[in-house]
């Protein structure tokens, strides 16, 4: 779960990481009030989950509270990279003398946390040369020791109080990462301002699997399309709209990807990625099929290799939908695995002759889609 910038900064403050003075507000009036409290030139930042807000006009500066109100009014309600802005962060404007980059995340290949830092922070961090980026893998049992934090500071060329401030921040970031079950704690830029380093931005991603034990973190609902919301409510593991005309359901991320790949190799255009997951039962699966139909595709292609997912559940879900809304477009079903005999029997009753192999089924779906579109 991605957190908004202001949420990350609230946690930073709790863990003792320096952040600019400021607060999240919902209205231009409150933005003005906060600007008065700050009593200095401010920055007004749209709070959305996408990056590149600056380029999209989602960040404005204000020298006076009145200007802050105007800027807030402009930003609130605008759309940044498809996300409607509902919250803004009003903060003191920092005197920026340098921009560093620092993040802690999990390096899956190393099965370990990794600290990544660079003296060249800011917008274009991803484009920095390899030699300008310092990476250190941590040991999960040892955590981040002070000497490692100091060595990182040294390697990005910091000295004196800046080195101390940086080492302190990176240790606190690690503590926060572990205590908050974060997958990512990122500061970009970490701003050099006089003798201190200050977190001018925050990116904090909490491990979805650990939300159950992080009750004090407010839930952030990532902006979803209507269809994605429906899929989420139906208990579908993962659903992404792709815009083609063959609506696809499979079970398992790997086989779903492989189904899409196969459809595309045969010249078809998938309407979506839908990993139905395992064990959603008849009703959940029926809802998922309704979502497929709601995309108004030319063909529905269901590809099931039953394991935890039972073939009879999927067949009954299909039958249930067909009884309810009929078969507005052709259904191509491939079905093998757990309880397949019963599944095939149920399908036959509603007039579907299921395939046993994936390739001919995918081919058939593509042919039908082309026929249907013609």
């Amino acid at each position, binding site marked *: 779960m991605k957190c908004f910038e202001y949420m990350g900064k609230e946690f930073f403050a709790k863990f003792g990481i320096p952040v600019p003075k400021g607060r999240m507000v919902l209205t231009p009036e409150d933005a003005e009030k906060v600007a008065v409290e700050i009593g200095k030139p401010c920055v007004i930042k749209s709070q959305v989950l996408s990056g590149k807000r600056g380029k999209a006009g989602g960040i404005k500066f204000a020298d006076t509270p009145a200007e802050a109100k105007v800027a807030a009014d402009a930003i609130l309600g605008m759309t940044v990279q498809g996300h409607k802005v509902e919250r803004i962060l009003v903060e003191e404007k920092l005197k920026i003398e340098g921009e560093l980059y620092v993040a802690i995340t*999990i390096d899956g290949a190393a099965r370990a*946390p990794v600290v990544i830092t660079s003296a060249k922070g800011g917008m274009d961090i991803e484009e920095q040369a390899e030699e300008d980026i310092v990476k250190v893998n941590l040991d999960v049992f040892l955590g981040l020791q002070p000497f490692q934090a100091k060595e990182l500071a040294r390697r990005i060329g910091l000295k004196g109080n800046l080195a101390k401030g940086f080492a302190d921040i990176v240790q606190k970031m690690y503590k926060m990462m572990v205590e908050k079950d974060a997958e990512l704690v990122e500061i970009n830029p970490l701003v050099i301002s006089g003798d201190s380093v200050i977190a001018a931005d925050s990116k904090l991603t909490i491990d979805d699997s650990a939300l159950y034990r992080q009750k004090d973190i407010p839930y952030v609902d990532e902006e979803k399309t209507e269809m994605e919301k429906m899929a989420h409510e139906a208990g579908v593991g993962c659903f992404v709209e792709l815009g083609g005309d063959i609506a696809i359901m499979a079970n398992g991320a790997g086989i779903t990807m492989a189904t899409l790949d196969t459809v*595309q190799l045969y010249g078809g255009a998938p309407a979506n990625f839908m990993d139905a997951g395992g064990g959603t039962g008849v009703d959940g699966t029926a809802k998922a099929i309704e979502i497929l139909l709601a995309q108004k595709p030319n063909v529905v292609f269901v590809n099931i290799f039953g394991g935890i997912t039972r073939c009879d559940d999927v067949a009954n879900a299909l039958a249930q939908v067909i009884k309810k809304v009929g078969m507005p477009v052709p259904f191509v079903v491939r079905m093998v695995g757990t309880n397949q005999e019963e599944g095939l029997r149920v399908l036959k009753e509603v007039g579907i002759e299921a395939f046993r192999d994936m390739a001919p089924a995918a081919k058939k779906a593509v042919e039908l889609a082309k026929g249907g579109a013609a």
Partner: protein
Amino acid sequence: MAILVNADSKVMIQGITGKQGTFHLKQMQAFGTQVVAGVAPGKGGGIHEGVPLYDTVYEACKNHQIDAAVLFIPAPFCKDAALEAIESGVKVIVVVTEHIPVHDEMIIVNRGKQKGATIIGPNTFGMASWKCKLGIMPNIAFSPGPVGVVARSGTLTYEIVGSLTNIGIGQTSVVGLGGDKCPGSSFVQMLKMFEADPDTKAVVLIGEIGGNAEEEASEYIKTMSKPVVAYLAGKSAPPGKRMGHAGAIIERGKGTYEGKVKALTAAGAKVATFPHEVRDLIKEHLK
């Protein structure tokens, strides 16, 4: 023979009396797995589907030789259950559960490494050698034979292994590494075992986009004497979720379909375009 476990292996199930545990216990028994002990706190001393129950892993291990453990444990308690198996000296541990917090996962897999335990999973269908299935995959897909299979994803493995079985090509062992960020085992570890296993004549590697596991594997495949056939899912996938800049920096230039195909091909592996092509390529190699 096979890798990691075989028909003689003695297996313990943690969380044996739950709905999942019970269902898959029966499936495993039907496959031929020797389940000799089950752990179910508070039920020690009882019998479940013919299997003696113990309150703790320590007790089970005191009373039985345990070659492998399978965990059917809810995610919040998996760290504790996996550590219990590791610290008790179990050497093959299959963690089926998905949605384990990644910080727990790092502790499990790194502790396993320290203690010389092979962790399969988390978030895996498990593994099977002939007559010894540890996990949740459908029994019918498997048959004994000369092909080693190692995979990152589940149903796709059933798909490909099933297609091999259908044309009479069996498997020495089939291993699912699991779909999580920090899997306990790697392609390379399994490939090494397949290379060393005299009964394995060819290996199937089932990968997907993202991460650098396939690139790592390619380095080892270069040194292998046995043929490797790979299939990678995700050629047409839209760009996945990204985690800030850090993910992009770690993975620089790795993880794409094209990159992986290039690495595997350069290492001498054949990469199948369709899942069903795998069986044809394997058939070539076994001629």
